[in-house]
């Protein structure tokens, strides 16, 4: 690795940036699994688990980030920062903060009862996991934030609904998600 490459990787590793719908730390929605592994492996501090028959989750222990990859298309679709992560959203929301405080910083947050998470109307594409995986409406302000996630709702929904047994369909979605990733990386793409 050249000096400039080392510098680049170093700066990425230090970044805890949260970009709703786009990425978290060095990880991006639509990032190919090969690039995900490239980010994780040099640190030698990760493990992985097959969460479902469709999803493998890589835990970047050093950064306290979980990267979920859909194994049908080989692309990252969800990134979650959990215990130990010290980054903040652009509004200043961070882990261990009470929901009530997060609501003061982003008053567009609302409870998505299906997922049990706080979602933002103003900044779609990021969500907050609470101490209770299934909070009750109107009774969650005392709960602590235990995770900050980034996803693209549209892609997530497609991945949830479609079984992608049809190769053409899987390829079409993979292509769109990959282009989304490339555009986020380089707006001139």
């Amino acid at each position: 690795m050249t000096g400039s490459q080392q510098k680049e990787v170093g700066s990425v590793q230090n970044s805890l940036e949260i970009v709703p719908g786009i990425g978290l730390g060095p990880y991006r929605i639509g990032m190919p699994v090969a690039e995900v592994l490239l980010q994780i492996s040099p640190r030698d501090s990760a493990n992985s688990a097959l969460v479902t028959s469709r999803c493998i989750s890589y835990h970047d222990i050093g950064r306290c980030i979980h990267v979920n990859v859909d194994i049908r298309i080989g692309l990252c679709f969800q990134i979650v920062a959990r215990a130990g992560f010290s980054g903040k959203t652009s509004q200043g929301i961070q882990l261990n903060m009470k929901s009530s405080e997060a609501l003061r910083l982003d008053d567009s947050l609302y409870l998505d009862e299906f997922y049990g998470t706080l979602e933002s109307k103003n900044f779609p594409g990021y969500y907050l996991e609470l101490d209770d995986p299934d909070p009750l409406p109107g009774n969650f302000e005392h709960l602590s934030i235990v995770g900050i996630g980034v996803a693209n709702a549209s892609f997530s929904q497609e991945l949830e609904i479609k079984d992608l047994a049809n190769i053409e369909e899987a390829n079409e979605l993979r292509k769109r998600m990959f282009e989304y990733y490339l555009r986020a990386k380089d707006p001139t793409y």
Partner: protein
Amino acid sequence: MLPAATVTVAVIGAAAGGIGIGAGLYEAFTGREHRWDGSGGVLSEGDYSESVGNTASMAVSAGGLFHSKPRLLSERPCPGSPTIWESDPMLPFRNPSVLKDMSVSQVRDFYQSQPGWTTGTLGKGSNEGLGLTIRKLGPNGEYADGYVQWHPGSRHHFDYNPYWKVKMGGGPETMVNDRLPAEGGW
């Protein structure tokens, strides 16, 4: 020679006791694969005796019991077993308690076999990748109103015990928004 009808009824009796034969328990419970009357409904009590006759005659005409399709095995759920499988995926939304004693896999398999519904696992939070989610789909395959979830439990609900969550509708006109203990196992 033993009349075919007698033998057939005996096998039906075994299935009613919970023994999976032929198409297996799944079909016995769901009635999806061997529904020959095309009506989409489960036979009523009155239909039962009629079908015994039909099954018997089929057994005879097919030349042997095990070469015929045992109609009643699939069309009549096991007596005494909790069931929502009357080809009505909306039943839990009218009466969530029907889920209480159902096993998660039975519910999952049933909805997987129903057009217009999608199943998965909990997608976010500390139970990510666990549990069961069932969502109603709209005409274009988009998410519609109405879902069923099986949660593995947490300290906040039912003292770490698994539970069902059923929701359809919203606001003051909420049709159902219920959580109830799950006692049917996986």
